[in-house]
């Protein structure tokens, strides 16, 4: 990944340059914290994991091989720690009921304007399995390619594409159901 400017930053970290760690932190801290927090819904635990991620990045800088982007590498560390946290908490993921491939139209979104409706989306996201949610959030919030997402969460690229597709379909279905329920009230 010769076109990734962060590779040079990691090289400096590997040589012991703490200012490079500052630079990487300032570059990635906010989106990475958002990513971790969205999975745990606990800002305190998210801050601790963020700290652990950057420590691991610092300690592992010398071993970084630029076969992937730096961002992908850092997010992969974060994702592993989030999964460890899930396990430590004994979190049980909900088994999503995968729909057949539906006709997707914008109808569910036409009325999604208000804060209440955005809350509906958050509820629907909360109902996704963690790995589906991670896949779609990395795709739509971090704008990662399916190759990057696959590297972060450690699954084949085809699995990422399928998970994002299903997550999108599940969100659509969930939103439509909530909108319909609200319309009946």
């Amino acid at each position, binding site marked *: 990944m010769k076109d990734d400017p962060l590779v040079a930053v990691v090289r400096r970290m590997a040589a012991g340059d703490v200012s490079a760690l500052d630079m990487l932190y300032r570059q990635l801290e906010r989106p990475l914290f958002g990513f971790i927090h969205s999975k745990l819904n606990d*800002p305190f635990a998210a801050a601790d994991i963020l700290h652990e991620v950057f420590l691991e990045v610092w300690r592992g800088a010398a071993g970084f091989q630029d076969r992937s982007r730096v961002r992908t590498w850092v997010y992969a560390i974060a994702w592993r720690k989030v999964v460890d946290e899930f396990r430590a908490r004994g979190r049980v993921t909900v088994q999503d009921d995968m729909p057949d491939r539906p006709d997707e139209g914008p109808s569910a979104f036409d009325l999604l304007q208000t804060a209440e409706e955005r809350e509906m989306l958050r509820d629907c996201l909360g109902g996704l399995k963690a790995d589906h949610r991670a896949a779609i959030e990395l795709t739509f919030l971090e704008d990662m390619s399916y190759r990057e997402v696959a590297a972060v969460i450690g699954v084949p690229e085809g699995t990422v594409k399928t998970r994002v*597709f299903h997550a999108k379909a599940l969100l659509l279905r969930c939103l439509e159901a909530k909108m319909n329920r609200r319309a009946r009230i």
Partner: protein
Amino acid sequence: MTSAQFDKARIAELIPFWVNGSLTDEEAEALAREFERDPALHAQVQAARQLRGLMRASALPERSPGDFGLARLRRAVAEKPRTPGSLRQSAAAAAIAAVVTAGGLSLTGWSGSNDQYRQAAGPQTAALFTVSVRDEVPQSAFADLLLANGLTIVDGPSVLGFYRLALVGGADDSDITAARAALERAGNLVELVESTE
């Protein structure tokens, strides 16, 4: 599954990555040709685009650790230089060690109760105050206030946005009183000040 069905499924799977602009040039060109051939695909693109927009608009604004997180990281890095052994340590154990050495505390959690902290390095490093910072205050202004009064963050922000503060290098009663008074005078920055003892 026929070839045509497979192609349709593959197109549907690639649409989110078309929308976020991460496909390779070759993939994007191939997909653009499919969109020209089948205008019905535009509805899927529109749906994915709207979902992406909605997710971005709905992402809760989180208060990230920011400069305080960086300060904590610097402390941990300074306290525990890299060694071959430390590379093999679990990051969790290293982080806990860093918190203990940097803050002098053994942190077991945070729910607002004082008894969740065990002092590990003497009473001088125990949290003295719990404060909340006004929403609009930049972290740099809060950091300046702490530096000017010899205060340091022992922990925080908590779920409710509280910070626990201690005096750097220990304190007697007059230091504590002065520090509290300074925090209370900074009402434009600090919303609430409570003693934790």
